[in-house]
């Protein structure tokens, strides 16, 4: 295969990047236009002469947007910490210890991660409602287990398997107990994998929509995706605010992606590729 990149290749690459990024760039350009320029002929001009930040101000002043961001942050962080913690024990056992039924358990975990959320929502909703947990943080953290825990186990198992078994053997010969081996040998080596898993789990919890939409209907507990989706007014959609809010949500994610791209890619492709 031709491994050299010619000029045509860079043209293609530029087109590809442009196509992928275009919606963001357009939304960014729209968000700094005055509202009047979002309609009519001027709507199709990419740049404005009257740059303004009024849409950004409005997002924070007229909508509980800061509250949405905070809610998303709280729910996603707690979900991530507890899912990764519980999953790390299970993943360690599946990857490193010998016991019967491992393949079955891993198969079960994989199947659960494929469950359509809609199939679990009616009982979960009714139970949470009866417990008075709708419109609370716990009301989202609990159901988020359905997809974060299988995802974490699946990713961590592949990371734990990559740690060479020789190290464990050596620790055993030196007389370390299983727990000592875990804390002193395995865990330090697994930290990059755990971190990668945490990033992916955090993103999946941050982006979740169906549970957030049905369980937390009160503005005080809405998460960002639902909050933005509900920006819709009764008759018109406030496009100025929508574009500004989209930019506010996207920028931190872009920074995160730029900072952790190697880790994210290794997480996304582990388990999917047989080496």
């Amino acid at each position, binding site marked *: 295969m031709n491994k050299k990149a010619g000029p045509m290749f860079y043209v293609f690459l530029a087109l590809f990047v442009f196509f992928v990024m275009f919606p963001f760039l357009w939304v960014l350009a729209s968000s700094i236009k005055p509202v009047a320029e979002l309609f009519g002929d001027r709507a199709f001009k990419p740049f404005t002469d009257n740059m303004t930040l009024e849409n950004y101000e409005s997002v924070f002043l007229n909508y509980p947007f800061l509250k949405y961001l905070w809610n998303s942050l709280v729910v996603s962080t707690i979900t991530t910490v507890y899912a990764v913690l519980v999953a790390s024990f299970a993943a360690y056992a599946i990857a490193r210890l010998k016991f019967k039924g491992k*393949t079955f358990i891993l198969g079960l975990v994989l199947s659960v991660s494929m469950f359509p959320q809609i199939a679990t929502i009616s009982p979960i909703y009714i139970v949470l409602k009866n417990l008075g947990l709708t419109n609370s943080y716990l009301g989202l953290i609990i159901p988020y287990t359905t997809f974060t825990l299988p995802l974490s186990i699946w990713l961590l198992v592949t990371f734990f398997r990559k740690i060479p078994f020789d190290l464990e053997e050596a620790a055993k010969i030196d007389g370390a107990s299983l727990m000592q081996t875990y804390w002193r040998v395995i865990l330090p080596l697994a930290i990059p994998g755990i971190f990668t898993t945490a990033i992916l789990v955090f993103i999946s919890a941050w982006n979740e929509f169906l549970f957030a939409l049905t369980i937390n209907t009160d503005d005080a507990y809405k998460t960002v995706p639902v909050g933005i*989706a509900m920006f819709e007014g009764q008759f018109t959609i406030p496009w100025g605010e929508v574009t500004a809010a989209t930019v506010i949500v996207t920028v931190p994610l872009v920074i995160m992606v730029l900072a952790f791209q190697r880790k994210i890619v290794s997480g996304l492709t582990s388990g999917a590729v047989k080496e």
Partner: protein
Amino acid sequence: MKPNLMPSNPKPIEAKKKTKSKKKLSERSLGYFLIAPAMILIFIIAIWPVFQSFYYSMFDLRLNNPVKSEAHTSYSVNLQTYLDNYPFLMNTLDEEIGEASGKTKEELEAIQADLEKIDSELQKDSELKVQYDQVDERLMVMKPVSEDLAVAELNKEVALNFEKTVDETTDRIRELKGDLKNPNDVIGLSSSLSDSIITPNFIGLKHYKENLSDGRMWKAISNTTVFTVISVFAELVIGLAIAILINKAFFGRGLVRATILIPWAIPTAVSAFMWKYLYDGQNGIVAKAFESIGLFDRMTDLLTSSNGAMFSVIFADVWKTTPYMALLLLAGLQTIPSSLYEAAAIDGASKWKQFLKITLPLLKSSILVALLFRTLDAFRVFDLIYVLTGGGPANSTETISILAYKVMFAQTNFGEGSALSVIVFICVAIISMIYIKFLGRDLLNDK
């Protein structure tokens, strides 16, 4: 918690074998101990709800209707509702009897006697009597009554008799309407009394039967299938092409990789709203672009015609997930040794032949895994369509998940909604079984 692996070992040689088996045992129990919390959580929060959904789907369960808001398999009486109405009904009847005369009076007295009969029948059961008195006491002093205390099971005959008598009473009072002083009070109390009987709302597989003969359900299934097949196929072809093209060293790799990740990373609901803006019939730039290249006659067609809406939804999905697909396939491509291609080139194989004979076979499992995840994801699509079109126009983009959601939360018909969600679950299970058959056990094995 810590298994003791260093036992006092006075006779090392004889004890060696024993320690070894002990070690194995402790490793095994430690294994089960470590996976237990995760398994328990998965069981409670993911597996139990699926069974519960199936259970609910066999009931006429409606959250906005107090008599049907829970699944009941047997007859029971809500003593709180009963005692909130029965004494007042009797009192009102007393008052009416005092005012009435002749035939009306006789009829009212007969009604009262019938009601007393069912009341005494209720109190005949000693267990029920205890509950009856407790509820009565609490209502007297205005204390709240817990649901457990309020609801008591009844046997079928008593319940049916109760229901029949109360219904008859209401009818008889209605006939006397003209002769009564406060007819509406009496009728109101009497008909509320009938609400205190809870009849089983078990209906078996009726929801499934209805759904399977309902055009809207089949339309939703076909919409979901169209969406899944076209979007996954487009993502695979475009993703594979991109992966092959960028599988080389070039300047700005990191930037391209970050670009690829951004659509994947932002919430689907947010990107759907972004596309809604770009597709807008008056001011959307993408709608304008499609119109000017002749893809659509009018800008508004994109979100207001059936085909336009389906196209829009698929296009937005392809934009969001193709980069992710390319990434998965790229990782697969990188595991193919370049020496294979060199050897093939020396043997004079064309690029196309190399693709067919080397790339595709070696990439098979990567492709299948990517397809499996993408197909299942696409089949349960919800956020994108909910935000972008809401299932419209005229249900032309309504997928099965959207339909189930609407039935459950807009119509509050949880029984039927659960039946639909079980149907989604079965479809997903069938799709995964087909893929797993192709993939074999590769997916789960250690190496």
